[in-house]
């Protein structure tokens, strides 16, 4: 929105149809920015690659490292927008593939974008719809033009091109949008296909940049690919950095590959990505993974895990998960987590939630979702505070030790910390043993 400059006597009148598209920023600081985003590293960990930063988006200002809950279809599994706000969460993810189908761009346009449609005034991030290709691969066909696949909802054929993905994401109106990438499973052994996908993703990135119609409102992130092939990944990063974008996503991981390969691929990506721009690691949400990847230099994350596991009655705690369906909880009068101050933990006991799991699934799913999102928010806040005080290595060490030592399913008394965790943190100067 242009400010009236008193020096000139000419008033600039903004036509209403543009007004409907342009978002009003909650703060002026984005007015003169190159992108509708600002990223400022506030503090660096003196040992690892972790950093504390401030991220300013059109709809929200937040600190990173941060976690984004996933509201796939324009809703967060039973948690209403004002409840999300109450959890100190102001950035969530929506899924382009699903939203493009239902409700579709026509209705989203009529509504004025997803923010208005779902009544969420915080920041939104949308993925491109590309990930669904991996999960629906048996029905999908990838060509240079795009991806065609059969909608599982009504069996119709859908073609997703970079241009179409941009069109849908422009309609949705998220603060950050993803390029359409040629996603290939990280466990795929075919190096030729992996290379083809990586190079095609770059060509698709350029098509996305060209067809992105709302550069002043929405930040387009490219996605680093290359699977577990370090050479390809390095090539991917170097090409992406040549394009002028506000930030980067690290993709093609969290698809069932070994953790050993996973962390190396993440670390290589962050080694070559510019320090002054945010790094979004896709598909990571387990506490241990979050801590390790923060140490490796990632800034924000998304995962369906917290909200999905809530549906099955599992509540997140530092030691892992509590499966509240188990009978041991039927008489447990404690709250889920005595350190948590979410609505669920302030009000209800585990026994009560156990009872609800047998009767009112809607309410209990909502209650556990609220707790799980609160847990993730609190975890990230603890991580940020430790970076702020330069005690991140100690925080990581304590958390990881406690997590694995409390795992009573293992037989030995020796530390059960997986090798990959030890090696990953060692690579950034954090010694766990």
């Amino acid at each position, binding site marked *: 929105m242009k400010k009236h400059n008193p020096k000139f006597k000419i008033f600039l009148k903004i036509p209403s149809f543009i007004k409907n598209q342009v978002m009003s920023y909650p703060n002026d600081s984005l007015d003169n920015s190159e992108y509708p985003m600002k990223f400022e590293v506030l503090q660096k960990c003196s040992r690892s690659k972790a950093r504390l930063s401030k991220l300013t988006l059109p709809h929200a200002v937040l600190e990173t490292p941060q976690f984004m809950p996933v509201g796939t*279809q*324009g*809703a967060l599994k039973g948690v209403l927008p004002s409840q999300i706000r109450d959890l100190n969460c102001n950035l969530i993810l929506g899924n382009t593939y699903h939203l493009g189908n*239902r*409700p579709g761009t026509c209705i989203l346009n009529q*509504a004025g974008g997803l923010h208005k*449609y779902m009544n969420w005034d915080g920041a939104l991030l949308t993925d491109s719809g590309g990930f669904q290709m991996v999960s629906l691969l048996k029905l999908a066909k990838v060509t240079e033009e795009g991806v065609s696949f059969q909608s599982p909802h009504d069996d119709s054929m859908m073609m997703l091109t970079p241009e179409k993905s941009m069109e849908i994401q422009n309609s949705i109106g998220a603060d950050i949008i993803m390029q359409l990438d040629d996603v290939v499973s990280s466990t795929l052994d075919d190096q030729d296909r992996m290379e083809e996908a990586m190079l095609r993703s770059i060509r698709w990135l350029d098509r996305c940049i060209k067809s992105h119609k709302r550069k002043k409102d929405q930040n387009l992130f490219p996605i680093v690919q290359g699977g577990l092939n370090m050479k390809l990944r390095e090539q991917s990063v170097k090409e992406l950095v040549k394009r002028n974008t506000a930030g980067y996503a690290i993709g093609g991981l969290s698809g069932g590959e070994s953790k050993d390969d996973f962390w190396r691929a993440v670390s290589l990506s962050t080694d070559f990505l510019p320090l002054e721009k945010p790094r979004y690691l896709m598909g990571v949400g387990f506490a241990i993974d979050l801590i390790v990847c923060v140490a490796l230099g990632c800034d924000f994350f998304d995962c369906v895990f917290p909200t999905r596991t809530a549906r099955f009655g599992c509540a997140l705690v530092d030691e892992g998960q509590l499966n509240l369906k188990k009978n041991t909880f039927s008489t447990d009068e404690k709250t889920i987590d005595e350190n948590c101050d979410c609505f669920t933990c302030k009000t209800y006991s585990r*026994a009560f939630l156990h009872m609800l799991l*047998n009767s009112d699934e809607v309410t209990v799913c909502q209650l556990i979702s609220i707790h799980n999102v609160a847990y993730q928010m609190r975890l990230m806040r603890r991580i940020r505070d430790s970076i702020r005080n330069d005690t991140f290595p100690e925080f990581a060490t304590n958390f990881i030790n406690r997590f694995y030592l409390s795992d009573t399913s293992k037989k030995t008394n020796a530390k059960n910390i997986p090798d990959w965790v030890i090696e990953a943190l060692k690579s950034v100067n954090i010694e766990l043993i």
Partner: protein
Amino acid sequence: MGKSFGNFIAMKDYITYLSVHDNSKSYQNGFNEGKKIAIWSKRGKTLISSDIFDEFIKNVHFDIVECPYDDFDGSVESKKQIRKAMERTKSFVDWFFGDQREKFRNTEIIMPLVGNNDLENRKYFTEHLKNSNYKFKGSIYHGFERDKSSLTITDVQKYKKLIQIVDNDITMDGDENKFKIFSLPARPDQVVEAVELGFDIFTGTYPYVITKKGYATIFEPKNDLIKNPQHETEDYEVSKKRIKLDDAESEKLNKEDLVINLNDKKFSEDFGPLKKNCTCYSCKNFTRAYIYHLLFTKEISAHTILMIHNISNYFEFFEELRNSIENDYFNNFKKFVLNQFKRE
């Protein structure tokens, strides 16, 4: 004595009420044995006897408890069947209102009034209560026919005479301070009719039953003009509501129940609130289009949002109902409500 249920569900400032059956679901009649009745849960049937029930309410404290009973939620042909159910109810009543009464001083036990649609059996029952001289502050009528799909009572007026006769029988010595509970979900027009017959407390499951189907209620809970006792509600401009819809199917739904079905595709592009001028949280924050989307994509937020609206609407209606009695315009209010549901 026992642990408070109110504390367990984090509602310690509320009055807790234990009902025998979940009237938001339709359950199977019968399947009782001897002096036990069948109650139904996800796991199937459980038989409850007096002492099992006794044990339960001793250990878990509720402020108000329904005495177990046996009746049918539809009309029954066989007098013998009704008699059997009535006898079974008697055995529970004898237990809880007889010698055991002293045990439950902190809990108000509600007297069940059974006998289905058979006046003779109803009178057997009330005779027994009179002769046994049982003391109770509240009673609940069972045995009314309910509609299988909407789960509400089919017709309040059908039971008018029966209710008046039984009421007469159980009121002793001018003891007017007894309350009557209406056990089935009821639409606002049915509530008003029941209030006229002296009912005081209603089950709040009507909004829930509506929500489960994806419906939202759109009746008007109040209207300022009718507060004037001089105002004649024959003046149709004010009180008559005719909500016009496009197709015959929803016209029918709308006429009978004053609800909208948010599963209907026609709402997918309707960006208005559930009900115009409604001040509830849902209507202030969400559109019909979005709620349609949530229902269509099977998101549970849909139910939360609909429930908030339906409860708000229902409770606003009850508040206004009480106002109308207190401020002497109940007749106007009754006509206002009945007109909406196209009843005379």
